[in-house]
């Protein structure tokens, strides 16, 4: 082993990282997103995607959905550290593979080209509830909802068919059945 030339120990072997989704209920106040995001960057956690909006205007509650990767130990730390933040009410986390939870992202595709190309695009998107939000003779804006990887795939697939711009959201999540997160 090479001699450590520092006052700190050398890193030890790491466990395997996995993808998790965190759902965080917070007071909708100035700076609250910065607190949550700052916790992630400050402690070296990873954010793959982020979605946030107010969900209860009377109680003033926002719901933040964060997709992250980490070892089980890091994931536990993220939950405990989030819980410590003063404006945080509740934290739920689950694995991406969790069958009891639905999660979805939305994407908008702008396609420019002849009608037949746009039709091809729509056809390719068929599985992901495509909605045409805007249409001209030579362009269309198509909305789809799907999983992250599916959107990645569509993004690639539509490029040769005239896709010139993509806009997409972070993932949002909801439990299946009558159960809610707690």
């Amino acid at each position, binding site marked *: 082993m090479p001699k450590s030339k520092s006052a*700190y*120990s*050398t890193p*030890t*072997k790491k466990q395997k990282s996995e993808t998790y989704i965190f759902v965080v209920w917070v007071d909708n106040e100035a*700076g609250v997103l910065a607190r949550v995001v*700052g916790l992630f960057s400050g402690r070296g956690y990873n954010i793959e995607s982020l979605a946030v909006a107010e969900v209860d205007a009377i109680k003033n509650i926002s719901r933040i959905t964060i997709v992250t990767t980490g070892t089980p*130990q890091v994931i536990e730390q993220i939950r405990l550290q989030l819980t410590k*933040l*003063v404006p945080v009410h509740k934290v739920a986390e689950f694995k991406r593979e969790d069958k009891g939870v639905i999660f979805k992202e939305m994407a908008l595709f702008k396609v420019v080209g002849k009608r037949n190309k746009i039709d091809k695009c729509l056809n390719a998107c068929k599985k992901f509830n495509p909605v045409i939000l805007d249409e001209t003779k030579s362009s269309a804006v198509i909305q789809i909802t799907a999983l992250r990887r599916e959107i990645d795939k569509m993004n690639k697939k539509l490029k040769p068919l005239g896709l010139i711009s993509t806009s997409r959201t972070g993932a949002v999540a909801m439990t299946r059945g009558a159960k809610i997160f707690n």
Partner: protein
Amino acid sequence: MPKLLTGAEIVFKCLEDQKVEHIFGYPGGAVLPIYDELKNHPSIKHILVRHEQGAGHAAEGYARSSGKPGVVLVTSGPGATNVVTALTDAYMDSVPLVCISGQVPTHLIGTDAFQECDTTGITRPCTKHNWLVKDINDLSKVMHEAFKVATTGRPGPVLIDIPKDIQFAKAKYKKPNKEKKLNGKSHNKFSQDQIDELVKLLSKAKKPIIYSGGGVINSGPKASQALREFVELTGFPITSTLQGLGAYPGDDNQFLGMLGMHGTYEANNAMHDCDLLINIGARFDDRITGKIDEFSPNSKKVHIDIDPSSINKIIKVDLAIVGDVTSVISKINKTIAKRKNGHSKSNKSNIAKWWEQIEKWREKDSLNFVNSDESIKPQHAVQRLYELTKNKDTYVTTEVGQHQMWAAQHYKFNKPNRWMTSGGLGTMGYGLPAAVGVQIAHPEKLVIDIAGEASVLMTMQEMSTAVQYNLPIKIFILNNQYMGMVRQWQELLHEKNYSESYSEALPDFMKMAEAYGCKGIKADNPDDLDDKIQEMIDYAGPVIFDCHVDPNENCFPMIPSGKPHNQMILGPNDQEDNKIKGKGKALV
């Protein structure tokens, strides 16, 4: 209709209702309305520091030595940025601070106005929580919540940023609401089952050790009392982190001394070889654990902590008890006592062999050093200081570096809240202003800052504060002309390339004392040391004591980086031994 008060009046109303007696601060444009209001509140005394960092550390010393939150008042911009070091320090060491900062008027926020900075943005990662008060009607609620957040659970610093127009605006004052829960974040989450499980582990253990930390101090004097009872009931050996010193008497036979990088041989070996490790209010800091993979490899680990996020953060434990140390230990003591009444089988006989082993480690006498009658050895200086002050109820602060470790090793604390040091952040320049704060909280007590000459120069200006308020603090400088700990690491790891760790031009501390208007004492001869220390203790005002020590002394024992607890480097005596046996090389 109730009387409307200005924001500045509301600030003081809140401070009065929170029973604040002292605030440490420095005025400036954006806090002038609050300073203007100071004269109307005689129960609150303001201590004018010379730099806002000093205000923060003084408030830390005040808080750590008294158990009450420290209050800081600074202006916007540079006032706020100067206090960031102290806030971070308090955050790392869990010290309750409430910092009030002025801000430019709300309509100028975001315009790069004079002395504007994004104070809440800058301090977000170094406070438990912070608030920018943009509506005067929120002010009383925020102030009271700030005290609650700072002092409950794991304590820490908070900051309230108050724009100048809010300080002038008027609103009704609201008294603190006692019922309010912080989003239902309760702190005692343990059950009797967990206590029973721990007691079972206690009775089975053959090689147990208790490792206590700053959480015991933070939990209040009752926690130390409960800890002492627990140690007596079990007969277990106990070691302590840097921050936990004083929770258990330093001169007691069951105390193995401090553990960790510069801990004793017996404490670290006991941590490594134990079969039951009980962590009470400590956080498995990297200065404590050494190499994680080889940390206490064969033990069941129990962690008692008020902060759930401390559990399993570094070291996976077998039993976690989340709660306030006082409540948890008291519950354990009661449970043990109950069991003992049933059948008086004690497990003290189980651990007799363990104690024999510990005594063998103790024989190494790992804190030893080669004394000299020509130059003052720094360890000797601390030992003499201890011997000459141990019969007084002495409060000790330190700066950061070798002198800090020597103080921790050779000064023995018997009571909690007597030892104030920057452990987590390791802030050079902490000790002098902290001593100011301690002396404010305990005007009649002897307060000593065991300092290094490099550290103390970082906040030396606070001597002026000490002189202004006639605070008889004693600055005991172990002057070796080096940033000693830096030099020690360079010696061990960087082939003695002492890059920039020698101070070429040090001030004459005697003249400096004179310039500040306090007493200067210089010692460079071991024969005079006791007399000079006595002179320092007897002097009624502040003293700068320039103790010239052997510049080449290193702090031993130590665990080199990346090594487990049982591979310590010992002092010069043992290194000779090791060389003879041909083992010395392996240890370095």
